[in-house]
């Protein structure tokens, strides 16, 4: 692997990301499975970095999952998106940041379609007016939330309490990054670093002290596949794709996986559990899995937040071995406690996958 070769490509894909004043929209999947992540994103941006991020309670799903499950027509999803843009316009923002990769891809695709076929935009404006009496401007800048953490990575590094270094060996942690397919595969120029060697997560890992691992199936989809997961009968597809990725990364013994898509960490986390239960195979050493982190979680961890405050307990794969490696202090007894030490009992332990 020739690192300079990658640097050259990264230099070609630098996208303009304004520093401040963003209209923030949430992700359905992230809110369900990693609720702490979104909270931490705003926490870090607003309170740590003192940036202006606006969120309105009136925004909804973008409809992307329903659209990619082919349950709603293109016009419907476009109008829902137009409504989101209208909310941004009404709030006086022109920079639009999405927490979800599906949404991000959805917005990018729709804006691109409108650009190429202006008659579609006109029609959607009419439909939105008819349905909601709203009008919108197309955002001047569209970003994914990971773009912003990437943008702020050095500021975060400057305030970091921990570095991604194995405290036992002194070596940088080996980190595998996984980019959501809809981040740059459709429009390589819309992603930091392009589609083939995206830099958005690599940049974070590098500036926080870790070492990025490239493995053969790095670019492969996690296997979500929308309808291939939401319908129970199809989940073998989803499982098989994740399995393929893990088989490919296994020889590299990564310390953890970093993702920027809300779905991928859920799938890569839970499919490890299913592979362990059905195939008896674990990838993380000592019967553990490989922890799969969102970039918000990682940023929060290096900034020194309590792992249980940011929702690390909602992962099926235990994160404790990773926390130990980095040297992050945590209280095992607090892991499954509610607010004010409320006893919530604890999840059952899986049969094969080792958990804490």
């Amino acid at each position, binding site marked *: 692997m020739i690192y300079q070769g990658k640097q050259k490509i990264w230099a070609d894909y630098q996208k303009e990301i304004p520093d401040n004043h963003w209209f923030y929209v949430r992700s359905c999947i992230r809110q369900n499975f990693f609720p702490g992540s979104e909270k931490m994103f705003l926490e870090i941006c607003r309170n740590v970095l003192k940036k202006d991020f606006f969120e309105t309670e009136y925004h909804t799903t973008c409809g992307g999952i329903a659209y990619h499950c082919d349950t709603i027509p293109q016009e419907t999803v476009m109008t829902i998106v137009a409504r989101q843009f209208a909310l941004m316009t009404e709030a006086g923002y022109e920079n639009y940041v999405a927490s979800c990769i599906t949404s991000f891809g959805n917005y990018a695709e729709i804006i691109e379609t409108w650009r190429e076929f202006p008659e579609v935009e006109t029609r959607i404006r009419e439909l939105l007016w008819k349905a909601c009496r709203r009008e919108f401007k197309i955002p001047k800048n569209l970003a994914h939330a990971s773009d912003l953490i990437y943008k702020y990575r050095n500021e975060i590094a400057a305030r970091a309490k921990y570095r991604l270094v194995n405290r036992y060996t002194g070596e940088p942690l080996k980190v595998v990054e996984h980019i959501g397919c809809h981040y740059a595969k459709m429009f390589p120029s819309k992603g930091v670093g392009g589609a083939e060697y995206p830099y958005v997560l690599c940049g974070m890992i590098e500036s926080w002290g870790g070492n990025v691992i490239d493995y053969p199936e790095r670019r492969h989809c996690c296997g979500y596949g929308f309808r291939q997961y939401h319908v*129970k009968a199809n989940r073998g597809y989803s499982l098989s794709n994740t399995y393929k990725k893990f088989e490919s990364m296994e020889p590299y013994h990564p310390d953890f996986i970093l993702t920027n898509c809300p779905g991928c960490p859920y799938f890569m986390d839970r499919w490890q559990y299913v592979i362990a239960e059905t195939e008896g195979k674990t990838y993380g050493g000592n019967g553990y899995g490989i922890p799969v982190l969102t970039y918000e979680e990682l940023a929060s961890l290096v900034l020194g937040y309590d792992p249980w405050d940011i929702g690390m307990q909602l992962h099926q794969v235990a994160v404790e071995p990773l926390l130990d490696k980095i040297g992050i202090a945590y209280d095992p007894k607090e892991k499954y406690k509610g607010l004010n030490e409320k006893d919530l009992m604890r999840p059952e332990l899986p049969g094969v996958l080792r958990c804490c």
Partner: protein
Amino acid sequence: MDFGFKLSPSSAINLDKVDLSRFEKLHGIEPDIIKCMACGSCTSSCPANRFSGMSLRKVILDLQRGREKEALGMLRNCMLCGKCTMVCPRGINTRHLILSICRIYGEDGK
């Protein structure tokens, strides 16, 4: 634990792992087999194509990819009529090739 689904087998051909020993044996008898340029003339003229999907082009390809079962399945209705030999632009003696395949490859494995 039963989740209601399981891993699916992969159909990808992994050329690193294909066992070509039988193909090499065949190639020893039929050196022309690798002259095939997959033009499909054989398939288009084949009367067995209607019945067992016979396509000599695919048979040759499948054998090289280690997909022996598929290849033999197609051969099932070959009537050895010789039209493929007549139309092959590379002059491959397809009839003898088919007979050699039938000698070397069998349902029984070896």
